[in-house]
């Protein structure tokens, strides 16, 4: 099986690479690339994302044919894709970080700043928080409800259709921290930084 981590020059993907390498061992052929040909022929895709919504979308658009290739992979061919952090946020129609920016539009909704209740809560939301699982998800196989995951973000994805939400976390409000819609998976937290529970999530994705 070929798993591809999309390297589109947006932020630090070393940790994603390291954790997937740890889980994949020799079972899986892991590629880290922005080569659209390789992406097309892979079985699963990981879309990481760091920095702002706008900078990630801009970086994706800078690589010729990448957005179309991803769309064909995930939407037309319905093959498994995991978005992490801003990688998940980009599934939305629109984001408001830096400037109003159009997202990929794969799951209807918007990405806006976490309401920190006029400074009552610090932003970014950084650290370990519990996830409250909302629906059965293949990603959470063997993961206990209220497991801790590592977060670092100031913006949140608000999907229109609440049935896509697979987990939420409690901060200044209930924040969507994981979505699943058919073959599309996304986590706001960083499984690659979430110790053994995070590695288990990665393993679940690889084993889909």
């Amino acid at each position: 099986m070929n798993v591809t981590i999309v390297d589109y020059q947006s932020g630090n993907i070393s940790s994603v690479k390291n954790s997937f390498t740890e889980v994949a061992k020799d079972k899986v052929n892991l590629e880290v690339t922005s080569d659209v040909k390789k992406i097309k022929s892979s079985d699963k895709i990981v879309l990481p994302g760091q920095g702002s919504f706008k900078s990630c979308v801009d970086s994706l658009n800078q690589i010729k044919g990448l957005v179309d290739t991803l769309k064909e992979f995930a939407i037309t061919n319905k093959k498994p894709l995991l978005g992490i952090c801003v990688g998940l946020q980009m599934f939305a129609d629109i984001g408001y970080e830096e400037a109003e920016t159009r997202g990929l539009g794969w799951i209807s909704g918007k990405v806006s700043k976490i309401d920190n209740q006029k400074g009552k809560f610090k932003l970014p939301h950084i650290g370990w928080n519990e996830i409250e699982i909302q629906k059965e998800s293949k990603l959470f196989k063997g993961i206990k409800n209220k497991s801790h995951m590592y977060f670092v973000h100031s913006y949140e994805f608000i999907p229109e259709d609440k049935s896509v939400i697979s987990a939420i976390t409690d901060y200044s409000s209930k924040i969507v921290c994981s979505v699943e819609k058919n073959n599309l998976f996304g986590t706001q937290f960083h499984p690659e930084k979430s110790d053994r529970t995070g590695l288990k999530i990665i393993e679940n994705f690889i084993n889909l």
Partner: protein
Amino acid sequence: MLKNRIIPCLDVKDGRVVKGINFVELKDAGDPVEQAKIYSDSGADEICFLDITASNENRETIIEIVRKTAKECFVPLTVGGGVRTIQNITDLLLAGADKVSINTSAVKNVDFVNEASKKFGSQCIVVAIDAKKVSDNKWEVFTHGGRNKTGIDAIKFAKQVEENGAGEILLTSMDKDGTKSGYDVDLLKKITKSTNIPVIASGGVGTLDHLYDGIVKGGASAVLAASIFHYGEYKIKDAKEYLNSKNVSVRL
């Protein structure tokens, strides 16, 4: 609910841990990779390396350590010490660091914080502030491990780095560092109240109660400590169980 973080810090000099962990199971007490692994296996919420190598030429040594550690530890890794340029940050992140901590360079030129957070995202830019009390309710920023006075007000500077995109502040009290008499809670309180980004408390921990004070009285989001963990006085687990017993939420 967001948990309060416990962060062990390892001082690294020329590739070796200076204040090593005194655990019997260690093969090599000076190996930072092995020590980081022990901390991460025992529940540390993050790992921090502080490179105190004096020379500039030795960047490659810390980078190699980060590279090896990142392959074995799957919790966030912060690296500080000698971060002066965008290239320094790029190198550390590529090696597997999740955050870098900037100290002297941020004081010299706060635009560097701005530039770095724009380029890499606020999530990976920590500004380390070393502060010393100069009079009642007044603290000043010091650089070069507390040797150089800058004349900059610590509280004003904290606000300034927040405005420039720092994701977190790592606040060390130079008066308390190494004394084992507890954090400078007044300083912490001032900084946590005047900024809206997470503050990591550092400098002075001698007992588990000090960790409690940093979080509950000082308002810190995370507590960093070195020697109480290194010498095996307390394990990370002890610290977490203690805090938990006092109703401070931690990741158990």
